């Protein structure tokens, strides 16, 4: 039987999925951060003396100077400032909210690095860079950074 690659008569599309079970570990440093969010509603960071910066989320070693950071914890404020934001207008299975919702970079007081999180309690059209926000903690734990459920305007 001669096969013509131009002729699509015999071509099909078979459906399937890629799905594999995983179990991720937050590690000692990540666990301490998440447990503080979950049990005490506190946001922790780590300070790198050499780089003179307070990082959040925390990390065991500084990526730039390799200083060990997991003993220099800093308790940060639950309030902060929106440094940057986007309004997510598409829906997808991996997204934490239905569109439209606000994804922002929020720098909590006491930290030098902002981190991405959700902002609620405001019309998506009204979010602004520089807006003061405060953390709202989750009632149920997911054992991720979403134990801090979202931020809302102060």
């Amino acid at each position, binding site marked *: 039987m001669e096969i013509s690659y131009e002729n699509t008569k015999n071509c099909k599309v078979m459906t399937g999925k890629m799905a594999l079970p995983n179990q991720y570990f937050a590690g000692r440093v990540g666990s301490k951060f998440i447990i503080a969010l979950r049990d005490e509603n506190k946001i922790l960071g780590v300070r790198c003396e050499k780089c003179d910066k307070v990082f959040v*989320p925390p990390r065991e070693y500084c990526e730039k100077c390799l200083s060990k950071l997991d003993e220099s914890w800093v308790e940060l404020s639950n309030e902060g400032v929106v440094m940057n934001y986007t309004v997510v207008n*598409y829906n997808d299975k*991996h*997204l934490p909210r239905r569109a439209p919702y606000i994804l922002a970079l929020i720098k909590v007081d006491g930290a030098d690095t902002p981190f*991405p999180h*959700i902002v609620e309690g405001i019309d998506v059209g009204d979010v602004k860079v520089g807006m003061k926000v405060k953390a709202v903690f989750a009632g149920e734990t997911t054992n*991720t950074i979403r134990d801090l459920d979202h931020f809302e305007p102060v």
Partner: protein
Amino acid sequence: MKRVAVCAVAQHKCDSNIWHKRFQGMLLDVLEDIQEQTGMHFSEKGGVRSIVSSSDDVFDARTISDNAVTDVLGAHYREEEKMAQEGLNGIGYAMSIILSGHDDVVYVAGHCKESQGESRNMCTNLSYDPFYGRAIGLDYTNVAALQARAYMEKSGLTEEQMAKVVVRARQWAAKNPYANATEQVELGDVMYSPMLCDPIRTMHAYPVSDGAVAFLLASEEKAHEYTDNPVWLTGFGSCMDSYFLGDRDLASNFALKNAAGRAYRMAGVKDAKKEINLVEVMDCYAYQQPMWIEGLGFCGDGEGAKFIDEEGPEKYNVNLSGGMLSGNPIMTGGLYRAAEAVIQLKGEAGAHQASDVSRAVAQSTTGGAGQFHTVVVLEK
């Protein structure tokens, strides 16, 4: 330093849904194309022994994605390494195989079928760590939106300028037989297209694309066996920025400036503006064209927006292929850039051929919001 020649390139036409071919079939098409152009063969005596491939396990939904394509790479009983980043890095690695003396001819091929998975955003969400990034739903679209806002703030880039980038991309794409999105649009079509992820509109984002690209590289001594019209690879560089978005200055071009600096140094380029006359950037989103151009040194810091208004893209022959905005798959975005640079330098670009081009730069990025950049310099 020894020189490495690009003897030939082959591009598969991009489309948003190549449903009637396996990606193996797409790779076979570009393999045959290269063989036809150069007479390349793989026989034990004097044939190609080294192959560099580029693909991605998550987009292919295959563990060891290169295992699925060994035969269509010609790699059966041969050396093959998979560049598991965007494929332009494979060009850099292939250069090293030749410059090291390990081998003198390398076949490079990459593929990606974005249409295979239900959502490319779900694929790129998996590149974020499970506890801080995935949990918040980060993907390459929404982190690009954060970078877009930061860059618009820094450079004053406007809606109209971004629309201009898209309109122009489509105009050039119409002349490129390998481009995907060739439908012509007006400024208003772009400016009033629905918001995808503020400030990125749907028409600012590259279309879902399937494609495959191949290159034949050879040492200076061997190149003449395959072509009379070689293009020279003279510079390569890459650079990694921080992973956490908050650790980075999203508008700084830190990684791209370093990557370009290294590639230019290797190629002996002192002033890109004077010495390079064709630019191909991997602009997955409209804001990225001016931003990457700026990172490559074709205008001053924060002047990318001005560059668009001052017809810089025409002056420097930016993305005459139509660029990513006219549709190439993400894992081969840079390979398509380099392929365009090669045919331009060879003078084989047909309807979209630029005049008097002698040195080109091709750029690509891997990771969210340009975390990692790669730059290649090519010369006639």
